[in-house]
């Protein structure tokens, strides 16, 4: 059924259709609407889940970790400082291979305190062992939730999934979203059946000590599962599109790249703006294209390298920065292109931090600068 709703609502309705046994989160702007929607569904008896209030994000993450270990499908959501407060537990969730799904509503990090959008929060936990998917539209916010559970719970993956959506731009922006029927979702997402769970009748320790003799192997297993997800992500997206009749998710999306000479690589809602800029540039005869990263972790090196074959100049737009180095996507992309033996020249640009608007003009400026000076972390729109 189509409805005119916020991205937050699209996420909440998708989560409800996945019927998690336990939901726990702590309110933080701009994630709050998601859990408010879910809380009202539970309070109104429309969703049979346990909604558990906690005193912090650290507790919310710990709670869903425990509930997941007890065999329940679980959900949490956070943003910015909340996600960072969760970070200790995020590493544990991944290390213990719990198929938790969490929505990160992307927001800048303090200090200075700033509640607006960029992607520094999720990027700061990119090494935690979570799969990270970035939505472009309100529709995709919901669609990625279904795919996230399917992916996280696949026996060959068993890795938590973070669905990242840009704060306000997606979380509070209203769009027409097609919300599927419960029966359709049930066909796509089978019930969660853990192979092992916390059960007093069959005692088991989750998260025991692993010394120097096994830690390396256990980390290797997690890495291998993440790399394995690179195969499963496209096949889940293909299944999704067969069943629901629209494309969402996957590793990357190529937009007008076939004959492109210049390309931008980016993730999230900014890709909508970039597509419009590209359409305008194409009308002016500039052969521009976009490579949208849907999956950022695991990093889809081969898909990226193949999609950019033949592109002469590549601009990476990061809405985050590894301070003192470069934007995170830039670093990964440059590595992928070197490994793919690409000749392309790659420039890195940092834009939109702390909610600074990225307009079609900003994108045009990046395309113009791409023909000039070589930069790895060129800030766009800096006031003089």
């Amino acid at each position, binding site marked *: 059924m189509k409805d005119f709703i916020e991205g937050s609502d699209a996420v909440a309705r998708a989560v409800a259709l996945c019927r998690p046994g336990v939901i726990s989160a702590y309110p933080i702007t701009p994630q709050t609407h998601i859990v408010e929607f879910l809380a009202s569904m539970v309070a109104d008896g429309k969703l049979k889940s346990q909604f558990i209030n906690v005193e912090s994000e650290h507790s919310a993450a710990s709670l869903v970790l425990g509930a997941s270990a007890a065999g329940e499908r679980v959900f949490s959501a956070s943003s910015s400082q909340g996600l960072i407060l969760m970070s200790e537990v995020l590493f544990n969730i991944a*290390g*213990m*291979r719990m198929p938790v799904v969490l929505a990160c509503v992307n927001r800048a990090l303090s200090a200075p305190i700033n509640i607006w959008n960029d992607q520094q929060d999720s990027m700061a936990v990119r090494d935690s062992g979570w799969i990270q998917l970035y939505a472009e539209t309100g529709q995709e916010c919901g669609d990625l939730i279904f795919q996230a559970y399917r992916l996280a719970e696949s026996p060959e993956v068993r890795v938590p999934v973070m669905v990242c959506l840009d704060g306000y731009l997606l979380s509070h922006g209203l769009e027409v979203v097609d919300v599927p029927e419960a029966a359709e979702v049930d066909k796509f997402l089978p019930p969660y059946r853990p192979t*092992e769970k916390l059960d007093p009748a069959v*005692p*088991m*320790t*989750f*998260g*025991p000590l*692993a*010394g120097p003799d*096994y830690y390396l*192997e*256990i980390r*290797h*297993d997690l890495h291998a599962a993440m790399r394995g997800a690179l195969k499963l992500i496209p096949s889940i997206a293909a299944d999704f599109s067969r069943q629901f009749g629209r494309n969402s998710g996957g590793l990357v999306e190529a937009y007008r790249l076939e004959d492109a000479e210049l390309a931008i690589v980016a993730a999230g809602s900014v890709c909508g703006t970039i597509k419009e800029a590209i359409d305008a540039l194409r009308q002016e005869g500039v052969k521009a294209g976009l490579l949208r990263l849907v999956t950022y972790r695991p990093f889809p090196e081969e898909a990226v390298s193949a999609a950019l074959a033949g592109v002469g100049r590549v601009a990476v737009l990061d809405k985050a920065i590894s301070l003192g180095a470069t934007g995170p996507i830039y670093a990964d992309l440059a590595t992928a292109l070197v490994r793919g033996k690409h000749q392309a020249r790659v420039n890195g640009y940092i834009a939109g931090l702390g909610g600074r608007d990225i307009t079609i003009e900003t994108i045009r400026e990046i395309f113009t600068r791409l023909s000039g000076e070589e930069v790895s972390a060129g800030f766009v729109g800096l006031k003089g």
Partner: protein
Amino acid sequence: MSVNINSRPGSARNNRTGSWRVDRRPKFLRQNCIACRLCLLVCPEGIITGKAKNSFETDYVYCKGCGLCAAVCPKKDIEMIPEDTETEG
């Protein structure tokens, strides 16, 4: 290699902490023991056994040589001796 990351009860037994000993192990002298059980209680490995006076002993497969038993013994009836003196037991 794939490692099972959850463990069943009793699996700490697989971790033979005796290999952690560096160069000393406790020797129970069994001369002035008053069976106060302090050594048994303080041992972080929980591997000291014994009931009667001068009957206390440890399990060298797991004894990691921390020396707490020797330090706590009020009768100085446990001595930390170099690994290469005498046979274990």
